[in-house]
């Protein structure tokens, strides 16, 4: 005879990811590695910004390069002679703590000081997935439109540093970069917002200083 029973499961998928994220942070802390989750839309300049930081600073850097299918970004970082692990998410639009844990096993953590984790180009899905990084840097650019912040508020709410990139192109694309700064501050009054152009060098030193500040405070 069949009988129907109700089973309490109470398993939160989000909490499961958070637990894995905390595990990742413990792995990183053991080797005294400071990690930065770099989030931003496709074409905002995440890869170029990380490349520029690698070339500008003295500390030893490693990079986890998240991409949907290609190894293109991973190849770019390899050209800077730093340890790189490429992560292909396949169908997924974000990295998660589980994927990052696998990548950490392939990363020579004992030989690096700072780990950049370049997330998949997306301002929506990464909101739900803590990776266990020590800070989250959101990179957007004026070419995406100066309503980008208003359209994706949640990603800015938990950001530690926001970079508004390609400001040299603001006039050409009719974007108001000051509005973008105001929109971020409206959502997250504490966060540091830096306007940059990698082409002209505007704001780049401030990004380095800001990251240095987080490393010192950690």
């Amino acid at each position, binding site marked *: 005879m*069949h*009988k*129907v*029973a*109700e*089973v*309490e*499961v*109470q*398993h*939160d*998928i*989000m*909490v*499961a990811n958070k637990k894995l994220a905390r595990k990742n942070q413990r792995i990183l802390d053991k080797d005294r590695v400071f990690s930065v989750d770099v989030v931003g839309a496709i074409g905002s300049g995440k890869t170029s910004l990380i490349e520029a930081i690698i070339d500008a600073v003295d500390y030893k850097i490693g990079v986890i390069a998240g991409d949907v299918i290609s190894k293109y970004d991973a190849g770019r970082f390899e050209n800077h002679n730093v340890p790189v692990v490429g992560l292909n998410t396949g*169908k*997924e*639009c*974000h990295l*998660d703590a589980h994927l990052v844990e696998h990548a950490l096993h392939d990363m020579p953590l004992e030989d690096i000081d700072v780990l950049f984790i370049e997330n998949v180009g997306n301002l*929506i*899905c990464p*909101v*739900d997935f803590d990776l266990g990084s020590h800070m989250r840097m959101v990179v957007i650019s004026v070419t995406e439109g100066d309503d980008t912040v*208003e359209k994706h*508020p*949640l990603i800015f*709410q938990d950001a530690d540093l926001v970079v508004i990139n390609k400001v040299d192109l603001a006039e050409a694309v009719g974007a108001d970069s000051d509005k973008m700064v105001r929109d971020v501050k409206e*959502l*997250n*009054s504490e966060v540091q917002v830096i306007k940059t152009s990698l082409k002209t060098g505007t704001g780049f030193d401030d990004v380095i200083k800001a990251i240095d500040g987080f490393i010192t405070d950690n």
Partner: protein
Amino acid sequence: MHELSMAQAIVDTVLDAAEKNNATEVVEVTIEVGMLTMLNPEQLKFLLDVIVEDTLLANAEIIIEDVPVEIDCRSCDYTGLANTDGSDHYLSIVKCPQCDERNVEILTGKECNVKTIKIEKE
């Protein structure tokens, strides 16, 4: 696609619980999805219906319950529902409806919880 990985994780969780309880079939699954997650319940349900084929859940009724956003305001003594009316609810949730400050702790609204399952046993 974000919802696909979540749907797969939900199915894995349900199958694990079903097998531990010696189920022959899962007849109902209740999932709680917070309004602050970047998950679309309709997409999630659609994908669940697709990926449960040939599993113990194949004929299960899938119930998705929305979890409203509750906050604890650090600036005043307000604890309770955030104002999530209107199309710009993402903006309003980070504000306390009482004192209009953004210094709030989010108590609920960020979950994707497999709450209960109903199973058939021999």
